[in-house]
């Protein structure tokens, strides 16, 4: 029984190369993921399920766009902005992309400093990540406001196919919600790091399990996934 509650797996058996190794791990007793803790494995499995959700959204968008007989609004023009008298296509989305990629960079470094047990740098980098995430959500709110003022609704818009609005609000709304939850959890975990919870293995108030710096990496997995989804949304919805 003790084996099942381990957070950090002990020595993992040697790995056989290639497909034989996969078959060995999966057919072995009790554990398929030898050197991965349950927390990390479950985050990966959650992210896999989330991948399917976003795949379904992008697929329904593809189906709507391919099957409509009305021309699709040109995203390059819809998301253009006038900055200092210049008409720049898609500029807001480009800035949002750079903000989110930067937040992924700071998160990756936070994970690194976490494993070096540098609690101040980890917490600061996580808070920077959260700030960049909040900036992203803010810019998205600006974008939504602008589009709604211009008359975009889930059932109609001034430029073309009616499905543009519903696809846009559904996909970016769901992604923005993911970013928002990410920011909340980043702040919660940064607070724990700052307080030194993972240095003294303080027990969580809800799970009463010992805290480890691995939670920073698990948080990082979620955050990078949010960035990853944006890569696909940027390519398929905004650029295509």
């Amino acid at each position, binding site marked *: 029984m003790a084996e099942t509650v381990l957070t950090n797996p002990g020595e993992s058996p040697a790995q056989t190369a290639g497909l034989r190794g996969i078959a060995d791990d999966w057919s072995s007793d009790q554990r398929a993921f030898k050197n991965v803790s349950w927390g990390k494995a479950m985050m990966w499995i959650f992210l896999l399920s989330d991948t399917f959700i976003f795949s379904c959204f992008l697929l329904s968008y593809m189906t709507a766009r391919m099957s409509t007989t009305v021309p699709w609004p040109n995203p390059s023009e819809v998301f253009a902005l006038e900055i200092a008298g210049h008409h720049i296509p898609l500029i807001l989305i480009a800035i949002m992309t750079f903000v989110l990629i930067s937040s992924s960079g700071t998160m990756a470094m936070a994970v690194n400093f976490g494993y070096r047990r540098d609690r101040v740098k980890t917490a600061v980098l996580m808070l920077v990540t959260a700030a960049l995430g909040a900036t992203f959500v803010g810019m998205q709110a600006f974008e939504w406001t602008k589009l709604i003022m211009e008359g975009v609704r889930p059932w109609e818009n001034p430029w073309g196919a009616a499905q543009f609005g519903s696809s846009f609000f559904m996909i970016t709304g769901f992604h923005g919600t993911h970013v928002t939850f990410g920011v909340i959890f980043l702040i919660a975990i940064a607070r724990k790091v700052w307080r030194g919870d993972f240095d003294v293995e303080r027990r969580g108030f809800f799970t009463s399990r010992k805290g480890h710096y691995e939670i920073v990496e698990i948080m990082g997995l979620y955050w990078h996934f949010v*960035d990853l989804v944006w890569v696909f949304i940027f390519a398929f919805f905004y650029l295509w």
Partner: protein
Amino acid sequence: MTNVAVHLEAQQPSLHAHVHDVPASGATHAKGQQHPIKLYLVVWGWLFVLSACSYLVDYFHFQGYLRWSLILLFMVLKAGLIVAVFMHMAWERLALSYAILLPPVLVLVFVAIMVFESDYTHLIRVSFFAPAT
């Protein structure tokens, strides 16, 4: 995605060297993912370059198959870098990598089904619901 991960897997001996140079203070959790900061900064830089490239695809108004293939190329490269390095998939055991990376690839079957379906819907709409002229 899978390709990039597998490609990095091939270089594992060199990358693996970093995994064990953990500061002595981290004795209790020395098993975590440890890689030099420089690696993250290089990947970060590449993600910026690739994002700039995909923005330029739109800025220079590339059209047709050139546009679509460039968009897909930059998208796959960015996704691969994020999954392989930032999410550390390049250093995980293959049992986990395949369990996570293979199922999303199968979504392509769903894509193919929906391409046929929407072509059919479009055909029906053009044939029966076209505005009378």
